[in-house]
């Protein structure tokens, strides 16, 4: 993995008052993203607008495509053209992107998608918050694959995690997602953008060997194949069909049983390196509240109240939601009474917690169908109930 410093041209060093959507765009520009294709959709449009405004002065392309299918398709083309690429969307647009997210996974294409989540299903609540695409981001395209998904809880983290998402997508040659929501997306806070030399980026893993020996899907020692870009004279082929190391289609079970496990294993076997959690007082906790994104900020108040009431509560904030911190949950499940999982959906990540807890501790859901954040009192009640 070759580390490089950010190009100062894209870095708006200084302290700013930004909303999460704009911070995403700044994070991407700082990460060296020079191609953005998108389609307007509330509540994510401000990211696209910021790109349209900023990118002409940085040297890159912004294009508003005809729909979200085209946006993600253009990203795949531009990534193979050598660019770092990004798009942003919300629920309905995210659904439209699903097929080509599968293609991006199959072609092992580095790209970043931010989803500023709103209430669903269908058109749902365009202007109001939700965290309802957390399972879709993992399972939404057909077939077996793995992706990386991060969840920022503030505009500052929209900036930071967008850079992180770019780095992870380059390291693992995989689509990476910044799963934020309307609340964080439209929340204005102070965002500190460091000088370019303090922003560490990962360079794409370029192949440098002989032209006729390049194999686009041959795993290297770290499981990740090297990449080339179109126009470098390799005359390579990649396909969404099940393929061998050469990128040639091979339509049989044997090839499928090499191709697919690779897509899954390269993420799962590196999960410890990818996963970032924020833990607080989990050591002696009886109850652990697991949350992510905006809900973790709402949780803080409930936890404070519970601690005042004498309940031993710890918290885990999932900065990385996928891959899931399976090991840590399993470990903690043996020691505690229960997990409490508030999220702005009718129960998604809670079932992953339940799976990992493996019957050692219950995972109690605190659902909210979207439109607004939880009342901290509801989370407090769940903690109190669980502690009995």
């Amino acid at each position, binding site marked *: 993995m070759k580390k490089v410093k950010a190009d100062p*041209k894209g870095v708006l060093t200084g302290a700013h008052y930004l909303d999460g959507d704009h911070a995403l765009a700044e994070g991407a520009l700082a990460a060296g993203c020079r*191609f953005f*294709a998108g389609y307007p959709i509330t509540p994510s449009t401000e990211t696209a607008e910021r790109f349209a405004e900023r990118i*002409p*002065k*940085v*040297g*890159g*392309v912004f*294009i508003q*495509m*005809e*729909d979200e*299918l*085209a*946006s993600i*398709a*253009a*990203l*795949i*083309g*531009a*990534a*193979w*053209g*050598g*660019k770092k*690429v990004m798009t942003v969307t919300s629920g309905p647009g995210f659904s439209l992107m699903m*097929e*080509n997210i*599968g*293609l991006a996974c199959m*072609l092992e294409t580095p790209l970043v998608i931010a989803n500023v989540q709103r209430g669903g299903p269908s058109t749902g609540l365009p202007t109001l918050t939700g965290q309802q695409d957390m399972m879709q981001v993992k399972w939404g395209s057909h077939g077996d694959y793995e992706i990386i998904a991060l969840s920022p809880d503030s505009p500052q983290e929209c900036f930071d995690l967008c850079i992180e998402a770019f780095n992870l997508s380059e390291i693992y040659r995989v689509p990476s997602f910044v799963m934020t929501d309307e609340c964080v997306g439209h929340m204005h806070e102070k965002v500190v953008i460091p000088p370019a030399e303090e922003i560490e980026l990962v360079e794409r893993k370029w192949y440098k060997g002989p032209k006729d020996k390049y194999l686009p899907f041959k795993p290297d020692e770290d499981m990740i194949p090297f990449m080339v*870009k*179109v*126009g*470098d*004279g*390799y*005359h*390579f*082929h*990649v*396909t*969404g*069909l099940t393929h061998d190391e050469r990128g*040639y*289609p091979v339509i049989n079970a044997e090839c499928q049983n090499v191709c697919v496990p690779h897509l899954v294993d390269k993420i799962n076997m590196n999960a410890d390196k990818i996963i970032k959690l924020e833990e607080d007082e989990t050591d002696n906790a009886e109850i652990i509240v697991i949350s992510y994104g905006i809900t973790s900020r709402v949780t803080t108040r409930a936890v404070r109240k519970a601690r005042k009431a004498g309940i031993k509560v710890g918290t885990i904030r999932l900065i990385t939601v996928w891959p899931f911190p399976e090991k840590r949950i399993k470990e903690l499940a043996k020691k505690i009474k229960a997990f409490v999982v508030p999220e702005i959906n009718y129960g998604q990540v809670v079932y992953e917690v339940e799976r990992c807890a493996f019957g050692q501790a219950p995972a109690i859901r605190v659902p909210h169908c979207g439109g607004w954040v939880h009342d901290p009192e509801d989370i407090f009640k769940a903690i109190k109930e669980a502690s009995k």
Partner: protein
Amino acid sequence: MKEEDRREGKNPIENLLRMDRIPHIWCPGCGIGVVVTSFAEALRKSEIDLDKTAIISGIGCTGRVAGYVKLDSIHTTHGRAVPVATGLKLANPELKVVVFSGDGDIAGIGGNHFIHAARRNMDLVIICVNNFNYAMTGGQVAATTPISANASTAPFGNFEYPFNLPYLAEASGATYVARWTALHLRRVTKSVQEALGRRGFSFIEVITPCVTLYARRNRLGDGLNLLKYYYEKSEIQHGADTKTLDISYQGKLIVGKFVDKDKPTFLDCMNEHLGKVLGDKYEPYGGNHD
């Protein structure tokens, strides 16, 4: 062609194909291979930098072309070859990007991308093999199936109006529009050469026999019978009004070059406009502008 290749009896386009993937999957009598030959011939004759030429396909019989042509090539999803090509072209404007796909891919499921890329005058070469049906899936009715022709999902004959693709392309903003049949080998080659040598959205439709499905279901005979139909019923009318190019069942096929005009491309417009409005603040992008 190199002398030693000639002595070995090597096909002149062999270097342009992935010979380790031959034999191909197309049926005997299918016209796609013929169009690939015409295309490869154009690549050879035009002497463009093959390292800087890419081919993108969607899904379907013609979607397999990207897998056989020895260029940087991406086999994408159904209908999305055009936006993938758009992204690739914009990422590296010095590339010549060709979309090679079928009528179902380009005009059916991908129709929206097709008209928008044409509207933007995106600098792409689009080769659309039109065999009047969805062949890979077994001969279903398409957006191009002539009225009354039979298809597996139109078992009593098609009653939907088909697209007139050159008209659609021109109306959407294409700056080069041609139509040929698979019988017009050299004409296809020439059109592809012209398209490769120019800038802007170039669209070439090639009517092609589907022997196994369209022809069999409609009892039109074998490949030779279809070529005979093309021979008898095609009429070259360069510059014809694209409105007049509807195709009826076994009717006249008007072919030729209908549109060939200069117009600034997407990148030309972007660079010119942003340069004018933003002045020194604008960072000009890519090399594909004057």
